[in-house]
């Protein structure tokens, strides 16, 4: 009995789980919403007139611990953004980036934010580098600040996992 008893307790435990609701999420058909602060693929923002916000100060690049950001500044003629300088080249190397969020913290004008996109697989090596056309939000989208910090939580505190 001393041997069988604990085994029966164990079997009862696993048997109980048979009747619980499964916690499995059938990715990719079913997805979790990300928490508001989720750090996924970066996005470059536009201002309310649809012009680029980045002033090419390079602060994100020096703050990046993985040296993943490369940018080139150019004089602006007024069509790309409001200020005098803009980034003519802005690249983030996906395989270097560790998604630490330092670039977002460092940006003094709120031009770069960590987005929610986490499905980052690509077919070709060249696609490992995100440049401006991959990072910039489409012009039509106005730019509410995605990380105001006061948004309601998108997942319940049970985090979608039930007993």
């Amino acid at each position: 009995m001393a041997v069988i008893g604990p085994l029966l307790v164990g079997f009862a435990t696993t048997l109980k789980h048979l009747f619980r609701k499964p916690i499995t999420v059938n990715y990719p058909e079913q997805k979790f919403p990300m928490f508001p602060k989720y750090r996924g693929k970066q996005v470059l923002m536009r201002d309310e007139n649809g012009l680029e916000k980045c002033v090419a100060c390079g602060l994100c690049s020096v703050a990046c611990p993985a040296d993943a950001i490369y940018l080139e500044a150019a004089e602006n003629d007024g069509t790309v953004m409001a200020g005098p300088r803009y980034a003519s080249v802005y690249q983030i190397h996906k395989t270097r980036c560790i998604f630490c969020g330092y670039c977002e913290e460092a940006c003094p004008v709120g031009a770069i934010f960590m987005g929610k996109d986490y499905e980052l697989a690509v077919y070709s090596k060249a696609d490992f580098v995100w440049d401006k056309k991959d990072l910039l939000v489409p012009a039509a989208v106005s730019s509410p600040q995605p990380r105001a910090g006061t948004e309601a939580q998108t997942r319940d505190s049970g985090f979608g996992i039930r007993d």
Partner: protein
Amino acid sequence: MPDIRTETMTVNMGPQHPSTHGVLRLVLELDGETVRSVAPTIGYLHTGIEKTAEQKKWQQVIPLVERMDYLSAQSNSMAFCLSVEKLLGLEVPERVRWIRILLAELQRINSHLVWLGTHGMELGAVSVMLYCFRERELLLNINELIAGFRMFPSFMRVGGLREDLPRGFHDAVRAFLDRFPQKLDEYEDLLTRNRIYIDRTRGVGRISKEDAIAFSLVGPIARAAGVDYDVRKVFPYLGYDAIDFAVPTRTEGDVYARYLVRVAEMRESLKICRQVLERITPMGAWAVADPRITPPPKDRVYTEMEALIQHFLIYSQGFTVPAGEAYVPVEGPRGEHGFSITSDGTNRPWRVKSRAPSLLACQALAKMTVGGLIADLIAVIGSVDVVMGDVDR
């Protein structure tokens, strides 16, 4: 009939082996099924993080050190921050101290859950793995909630925290704390008195107290062998001395004792979390008010010139740390862990040396396994809980 061959056989186990916890490679000499010698080979996961850290500004080192021991990210960054803060002579606000303790204890539970899951699975208890990873998911979600990243939140910073706690943090932690004790009982139902598990683990991988001290083993392995050493008690940091908790120890020093110690540790961690959660106010300071170290809030950066200049200085130059050396040990999930840092007075470390408990555990593997059976080797490797990222740095 030919004679039975009796010479010993050399077998290579790992680095691509599912039960060597990453890329540990063991060269085994076997006599039948008995292990005659064990020679661990390390270096397959060498990341060069210690060296890379010398080229980074102090604050930039944090995401790197978190990736050393990838199961205890919060403890790693906390250990690093404590060392740097000691050199800087900084005193972090009380609220930050409690939050750090809370996160470190949650990290300990997190790490022990991974350990229990994988260790159970290696011995055939697959359900334990599934259950443990289910609860771990909650802890990873807390990380995602506070910092947006599940494994490596880089939430602790020199001088405090990355930002304030988000809304719903207390509820999320409380939900976990309320739910977890029953789950722990569930794991124990599956293993603690299970004859099969006991037969596989009791008396296996023994190490004596003297040997544990001689190999300078720390953490649950040493405590399972009777060494009553816990940094939280011996050199209290961050205010652990104000918290009521026990340090579970056993004397057997075998795999089963390590299991019992770790499970008991999870219960103690829960106790600590409950006490600390009470003390964390929902709002309050999350970093020191030192303009050299803590960047100004973003809304001021967007509007005020002075804040903008300060912000630029912090992110482009960083801060300098007075020349000197510091080492502040913390009790990580795998035992005493800390960063011995040397500064030459500039904005980058001159040397960052990690004291890695996994490396020491690796060295004691031979002591624990020689003379035993090869099947038990799996149980022992699992029980010492080596994280190769911590061994190789």
